[in-house]
């Protein structure tokens, strides 16, 4: 089946099997390997991307469902080599260790901050229910999102 998907601002058209997930499409067809696959029960969130601006688990969305729509991956966040404030914040606050969950965390952070530009600690932790991290204990991830909120407020 032919699909046309705009990814990070660029439109791509490919012939794909209907059973191909959006995550596989991004990783295998577009070679955008920043989106990671960590589980097979839609639990871990490492595959989170933005679909029409909202965070979704790309392992549970078929590429054909994304046909004609817009996807933003981790590779699409930084503009002209400048890190997005969320990326900058994760770096400043040591919000990552092995880095595998990080792209998904950052994309979910984007969604959390979209819903709550000045989130409480509870809103952040609740917003991260669908993202697992085994390395950080979430402490610095929460701090990173709090810092990102500060950075984004001062940029606004």
């Amino acid at each position: 089946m032919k699909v046309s998907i705009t990814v990070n601002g660029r439109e791509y058209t490919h012939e794909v099997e209907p059973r191909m997930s959006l995550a596989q499409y991004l990783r295998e067809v577009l070679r955008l390997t920043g989106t990671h696959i960590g589980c097979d029960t839609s639990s871990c969130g490492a595959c989170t991307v933005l679909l029409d601006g909202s965070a979704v688990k790309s392992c549970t969305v078929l590429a054909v469902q994304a046909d004609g729509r817009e996807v933003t991956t981790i590779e699409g966040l930084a503009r002209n080599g400048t890190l997005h404030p969320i990326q900058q914040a994760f770096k400043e606050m040591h919000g990552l260790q092995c880095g595998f969950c990080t792209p998904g965390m950052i994309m979910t952070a984007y969604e959390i901050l979209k819903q709550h530009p000045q989130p409480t600690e509870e809103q952040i932790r609740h917003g991260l229910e669908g993202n697992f991290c085994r390395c950080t204990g979430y402490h610095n991830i929460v701090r990173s999102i709090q810092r990102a909120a500060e950075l984004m407020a001062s940029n606004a």
Partner: protein
Amino acid sequence: MGKYIGKSVYRVEDDRFVTGKGKYTDDIVLPGMVYVAFVRSPYAHARILSIDTSQARAAEGVVGVFTGEDECGQYGVPCGWQVNFKNGETMREPKQPLLAVGKVRFVGEPVAVVVAESMAQARDAAELVQVDYEELPAVVDPKAAMEPGAPLVHDEFPDNAAFDWCLGNDRAEVEAALANAHHVTELRYRQNRLAPNAIEPRSYIADYNAVEDKWTLYTATQNPHLIRLLLCAFTLGIPEHKVHVVSYDVGGGFGSKIFHYREEALVTWLSKQVGRPVKWTADRSEAFLMDCHGRDHVVHARMGFDAEGKIVAVLADEYCNMGAYLSTFAPAIPTYLHGTLFQGLYTTPLIHVNVIAPFTHTTPVDALRGAGRPEATYLLERLIETGAREMGMDPVEIRKKNFIPPFDGVETPGYQTQVALQYDSGNYEGALNKLLSIVDYEEFRAQQEAARKEGRYLGIGFSTYIEACGIAPSAVVGALGARAGLYEVGHVRVQPTGKVSVYTGSHSHGQGHETTFAQIVADMLGISIDDVEVVHGDTEKVAFGMGTYGSRSLAVGGSAIVKSVEKILEKGARIAAHKLECAVEDLEYSEGKWTVKGTDRSVSFGEVALTAYVPHVYPQGEEPGLDFSSFYDPVNFTYPFGAHAAIVEVDVETGKVQILRYVAVDDVGNVINPMIVDGQVHGGVVHGIGQALLEEVVYDSDGQLLTGSYMDYTMPRADDVPFIETDRTTTPCPHNPLGVKGVGEAGTIASPAAIVNAVVDALWPLGVRDIQMPLTPLRVWQAIQKASNGGSQV
């Protein structure tokens, strides 16, 4: 020290990770690559009657289908540590074939492998392989495996014990001391089985080059050289120089990526067999079945006290599950990484631990963050706190009574334990006092009482721990059965323009070595950290190293690097002296320059580096170049220690435990990057909270895995835990040049006991004395019900 050491320098790794440019093994694509899917046993114990691969072979895109009947069935993965029976009998070591031959012994054991042009085609074809099994009875519990009549896991042995081992003082003496003790606290419990769950699943790509007769193996591992050695010398019999192992970014390990797994060897074998690069990446479901599990001890433990609360003896009898086969380090985990910690922080004079390690029809068990030490700390800390409560003593006071007094290993000698190890340096009361100053213990007890009057149940639990890491002195572990040395290599290469490349056998998979090792080198040389790169994870770039696990990288890997930098400075001084026309003794090195003492005549590191590579005016007899490699074999383990406290509230109606506060005071010796150390503590503590409240691998009596996905295996989430409050004391390690001890596992070692002690503290007035980990709401509720009906243990 200098500009960098001791500072929270931002990580150089992060730019690639936050932009999605990390290179994990599954990200790699090679031309002509084919994909692998496994056919795995659905039974815990069965005879393989027949395998029909004809339909699979004919399926679309299939390149080959192989079983244990093919050549690969002759090969098996080895065990790297031998622990014999206490009566002298040799450890029982069954063969662990790459694909099952004749029998399967755990659910998930690989039986056949399909190679196809795409992952989807491999999966589709794998479903077409028909295996005929004769199901046999299974045993999953390690204690039950030792009962007479238990199904035998390996027919060549008389029973299911891999070994029966003990350590410590004479058992009869210890039992006598317990019999005469003023009070004995006794606990029977299970140390729950855990699945490691690094978020990156295992992934391997093998690429055989027929022209060079050489393989490149891309692998998600914690130790590339060890893999190469085991794969070549022990599994496939390939000359070691014919395999190039490359490991770029690894998404977490926690022990699970140390081991040499069957899939790794199979993928390597397959690549030559089919003449194409071969890739396999695990599903999470496969990871639950195949990645070595951790813990799974059935424990009977006793601690005897005198009337003042001083411990007089500790005795433990354990059945520690090995799983169906012996994994790479498995025998060492419940023995030399466990029993050797039974001294704890205490002056206990008599200690004996006996471990029977049975095979069962379950996934093999091996090191998992903490590897033997969380189990030891849990045992001691639950016993001492329960004992305190039983005797009406304060849990803090009883510890202080029993602490080993401070010692630094320099002025005051290291502490010789009753269980083989000699601790390097420690100030245990110092850590506990610091903890108490943060926690405000008195205030909490007042709050706790007030809350009880309102029908709310708050509790505080402590965990004062010590652990042995920085593994390890090769001669010591060799004498204890290790089949490898445990040194590390650090190669420091200065380029002509003064830039420095550091090649380390350590292999960061989240620990930030590219930053912390650069901090050390930059400070020692007085150069900018931007002029230092750290290279790891490639057997052609790095001489033989043992990898990253056991909280060893800084203590052992860092020390090797220090040795090489010292050699560089030593040679550099000779070159500088020649340039400055003085004696080496006249020079001092500081801020990146050699200066003639008492003058302002100096020459920079950069100038010396250039001179070393353009040796026109140069000391006679001195070789050009500025490039040194060192191997560092530690003289002892290192012994981080600390004091943690958890404050919880238990909803007694539902059994749900909420962690209100978690405070960690850790002493890891000198600290290179505080931000990274704190991060390790956060992650370690939460991992241990997972064991205490959430995680458990459960098999039913037929050996079926009931917790085979995240739908049933509970991972800690962000809303399960609070911020972790961290602080430190600093007692340097006396026996390595950096004075560091290691921190990667400390949090996981300490936290389960703190959490469980806290819940028991909260529920003690209701009659609850012990609850089996994980303390799920169900278990906590059942414990409360049982206590109110007269029983006290669940």
